[in-house]
């Protein structure tokens, strides 16, 4: 039979793909990234729809007689040291862990992009000062800053409400610390993007039309520099979630009785053998979400980075 005829007219008149569509197609070819997306969707649904089955009070309901019982009908994931249901706690804990991850990245991206863009665009003294400041921030270990801020603000930051749930002030502290100690890499990347992009013709053209500096930075250059920012931000969420776990493990995480995946692991530290369900579920959830985010980030990097040939080979 005749194969699809190559109609010259068709080829000439079909619309060329936009960069976004090219990226999308490349992303779709990255199998692991797709797996990652599915896992992410699953986890988000888990924490978003879970509240339909369990209330927050269920997650914090202490019942000492039920403590450390294994998975059963009434408690599918078992209970923890205070007899609280682990399934419910992973749902509400997941909300906070994910929230912390996203908010921390919002903070670090905002700061990093601002500093990197301004440094790269204006150059000169401004660049020098900002880069020295970035270097100075490298000097402050994240752990140290966390200890200082946690001690200083413990019990003094007010609770805040978001999407119908009240969060303790310690969440703010952790978001702040993780965010304020991870913007430096992004600032450097953004700065080098801006350094090269600002010499391009479209910038000269924009200046010629009288656009303000702010407009040039945010409306003209930034969109072209988005690729590494998106990739970096995605991977940062994974790091932030791991940081939260790390910080909770050291006992400086979100205050009890609020659960996060990280502080659930901390509680389970002493019960590794005796009550494996206490660490298995939050640990696996952390692993899954970080894995998924890393897959997606990797896919994004392949899809968005024009110089990466890994995607182009297929």
């Amino acid at each position, binding site marked *: 039979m005749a194969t699809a005829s190559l109609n010259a007219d068709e080829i000439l008149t079909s619309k060329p793909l936009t960069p976004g569509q090219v990226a999308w197609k490349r992303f779709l070819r990255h199998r692991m990234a797709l797996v990652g997306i599915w896992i992410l969707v699953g986890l988000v649904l888990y924490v978003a729809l879970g509240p339909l089955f369990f209330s927050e009070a269920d997650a914090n309901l202490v019942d000492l007689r039920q403590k450390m019982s294994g998975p059963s009908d009434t408690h599918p994931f078992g209970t923890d040291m205070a007899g609280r249901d682990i399934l419910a706690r992973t749902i509400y804990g997941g909300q906070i862990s994910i929230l912390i991850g996203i908010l921390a990245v919002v903070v670090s991206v905002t700061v990093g992009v601002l500093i990197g863009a301004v440094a790269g665009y204006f150059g000169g003294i401004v660049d020098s000062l900002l880069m020295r400041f970035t270097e100075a921030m490298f000097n*402050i270990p994240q752990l140290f800053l966390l200890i200082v801020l946690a001690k200083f603000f413990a019990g003094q930051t007010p609770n805040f409400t978001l999407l119908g749930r009240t969060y303790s002030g310690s969440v703010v502290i952790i978001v702040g610390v993780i965010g304020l100690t991870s913007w430096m890499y992004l600032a450097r990347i953004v700065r080098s993007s801006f350094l090269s992009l600002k010499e391009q013709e479209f910038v000269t053209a924009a200046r010629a039309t009288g656009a303000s500096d702010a407009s040039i930075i945010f409306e003209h250059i930034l969109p072209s520099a988005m690729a590494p920012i998106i990739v970096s931000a995605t991977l940062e969420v*994974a790091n932030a979630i*791991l940081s939260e776990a790390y910080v909770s493990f050291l006992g400086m995480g979100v205050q009890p009785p609020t659960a996060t995946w990280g502080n659930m692991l901390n509680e389970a530290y002493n019960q590794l053998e005796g009550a494996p369900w206490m660490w298995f579920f939050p640990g696996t959830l952390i692993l899954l979400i970080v*894995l998924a985010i890393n897959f997606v980030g990797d896919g994004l990097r392949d899809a968005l980075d024009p110089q990466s*040939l890994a995607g182009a080979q297929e």
Partner: protein
Amino acid sequence: MTRYIIRRLLQAVPLLVIITALLFILTANLGDPLAAFGGERRRLQPADRARLERQLGLDRPLIEQYAIWLVGNDWMKVDLDGDSIADSYGTRRGVLRGDFGDSFQERRPAIEVIGERIWNTLLLMVASEIIVIILALLVGTFSALHQYSFWDHLITTLSFIGYSMPIFWLALMLIYLFGVNFQRWGLPSLPTVGMYDLSVGPTVGQIALHMLLPLTALSVVSLAAYSRYVRSQMLEVIHQDYIRTAYAKGLSERTVLRGHALKNAALPLVTIVGLDMPLLLGGTVVTEAIFGWPGMGRLFYKASNAGDIPVTMGILFIIAVLVVVFQLITDIVYTYFDPRIRYE
């Protein structure tokens, strides 16, 4: 080049002063170090508390405390006996003359306290870095050359799992598998705490044996990340034109890879390693705590929590100096790799 180095070092001085001042303010706000004297079960008598605050210099305003930390107080008169008359010379010489002060927790020079731990952490960290770099280069290159093969996918997946795992979870798994459970199953188990067996002493063999588990925990995470990085760098490099030219010229794969590709792939790795090095000194608190490794990370964590200003500031100061120095070294090493880069 020499002028460049000197200029960078000179620029570093005011930077360090500002950084240390900032850090000092933060450190001084870690709480009252005297509050923990006595442990949980005994409180400091009020008269003793007032006296100790004076003797440890904690009753001075913050700016004065910082100045004393920096330049000492043996050139000025202070009030040692509480009669509000400054009639004796102080005893501190200041950081600029190498005196970090006495640790509040251990009542001996902070330098001594830090010095005892610094080698232990360096040992662990440097060994871990070396293993990771070598393995990352090997694994990453292999993965890049056999892109999309089964092995590549396996390695990639394992790498992802590796750096998605919280390190303390991994460490605890290792302990329970190789330490507790091996022993229970009658297999030769690996030691899980400390640097050496107390009855045998700090021999090379003992230390190496005790290093196995913590090294594994540390290396897995970094290995995963670095090998992915090397892989992507190698991929980028081997598709470049000059590599194709080299093949066309008849050079063997080995020569091409090792001569050209690896060098260019290794360059960014050097950058990362260079920047990571000084922060390694902070050690990883958690790994050291879990494995009972007497290192700087644990010391730093304890000292920070206890508000032990001399030790905390001592460690932060060392880290700050090293960050500056290593950034300079990295920039210089860069020029060996990329002759196009020149500094004036």
